[in-house]
């Protein structure tokens, strides 16, 4: 590729990044959030995505597989207004529940007040329930293909269980606000049509500590913010010390 073409391409790419999202509305604000997962300070580099001919080292396989901080999943990002109440919850979301399908990941993000349609995607009748704190429910004998509805009461992780002996669950994270996204590290997520004002940007991860940032968003303007999950924010216990 000619260098001039490359420069033009880069310029176009950069200019497109500065544009407000297409769904921007006059008088409203937008926000790009750059989501990061920070490895332990001093740790060797995480395995980057490699071409197939770059076979990983033996030590990085099986139990010794390393955390990929460049592509860490299950990061939940949300915005909370500093004053006032968040807007009405989003429309109902549908979640397929099938105990035969194993998933360790967070399937989706809901918000408090949102309705979740629990669809029995298995081939047999299931009791669909949850014992998660603040979001317990119990729907007995939902027929195959049938559904039940639950309205989220509290923020936090909701594990949707069935009466099947296999220990599989569907995990949904309930954010306190409908301005919420499921993201992975390295991703930029956009929040559009936000009323101008002060916000708190928060992120959560099932293992790593999240963080929060206070922001002021102005009308007809797109702001940028970064947020990270990292072990580095935890209290340190040094050698020879009992923490």
């Amino acid at each position, binding site marked *: 590729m000619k260098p001039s073409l490359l420069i033009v391409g880069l310029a176009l790419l950069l200019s497109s990044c500065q544009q407000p999202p297409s769904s921007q509305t006059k008088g409203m604000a937008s926000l790009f959030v750059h989501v990061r997962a920070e490895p*332990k300070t001093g740790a060797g580099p995480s395995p980057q995505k490699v071409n197939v001919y770059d076979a990983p080292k033996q030590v990085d396989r099986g*139990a010794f597989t390393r955390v*990929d901080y460049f592509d860490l999943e299950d990061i939940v990002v949300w915005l909370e207004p500093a004053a006032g109440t968040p807007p009405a919850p989003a429309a109902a979301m549908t979640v397929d529940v099938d105990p035969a399908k194993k998933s360790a990941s967070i399937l989706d993000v809901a918000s408090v007040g949102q309705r979740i349609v629990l669809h029995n995607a298995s081939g047999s009748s299931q009791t669909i329930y949850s014992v998660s704190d603040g979001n317990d429910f119990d729907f007995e004998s939902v027929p195959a293909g049938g559904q039940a509805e639950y309205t989220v009461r509290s923020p936090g992780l909701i594990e949707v*269980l069935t009466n099947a*002996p296999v220990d599989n669950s569907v995990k949904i994270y309930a954010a306190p606000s409908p301005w919420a996204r499921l993201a992975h590290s390295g991703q930029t997520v956009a929040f559009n049509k936000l009323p101008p004002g002060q916000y708190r940007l928060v992120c959560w991860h099932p*293992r790593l500590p999240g963080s929060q940032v206070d922001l002021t968003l102005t009308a007809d303007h797109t702001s940028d913010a970064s947020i990270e999950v990292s072990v580095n924010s935890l209290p*340190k*216990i*040094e050698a020879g010390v009992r*923490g």
Partner: protein
Amino acid sequence: MGHRELLTLLIFTSWLVPRTAMSAPATQPAGLVRGKIIAAGDVPLAEMVVYLESTDPAARFDPPAQSAKVSQKGAKFAPALTIVSVGQTVDFINDEDGLIEHNVFSNAPPKKFDLGMYPPGQSRSVTFDKPGAVFLYCSIHRYMDGVVFVAPTPFHSRVGADGTYRITDVPAGNWTIKTWQRRRRFKEAAAPVTVEADKPTNVDLELRRR
């Protein structure tokens, strides 16, 4: 003061010692609490704990003096579930054969900590001062996870695969018995229990969805 008066005084003062100071179950009349956990359906009961909580909120119990040990060999916490009582210390030992560093951490509310990276042959210690489940991870190794369950008293038992449990050396008195599941599939169960000295008390607990 004669021998008899001294003995009377000793007995009297022993009554004055508040119950909250009871901390050496082996020296007191103690009982046994045993029973079975019953769960609906064919649900595995592994990695579950039964423990006693005092009905006296001011009660304090000395933790075992000996620390618990958790191995990290093969990038696995062993045991995967460690049960300790409040105030007890756990030594996290890097006993890898190869030159593999680990970084044990937890973001759990009862104890947030980061032990930093350390090589084989070294150990780091954490004293758990609040009850609850402390989920463990390694910041380097993706599949390395475990849990330390911190019971509020030293009176606890891991539940067997058959659902049975046995808590020994329990001081006589009134307690609340509670369950904790690592993979929570039911609401936790709780029940009052009165323990009599030198006598087994049977408590079966049923786990329910609601």
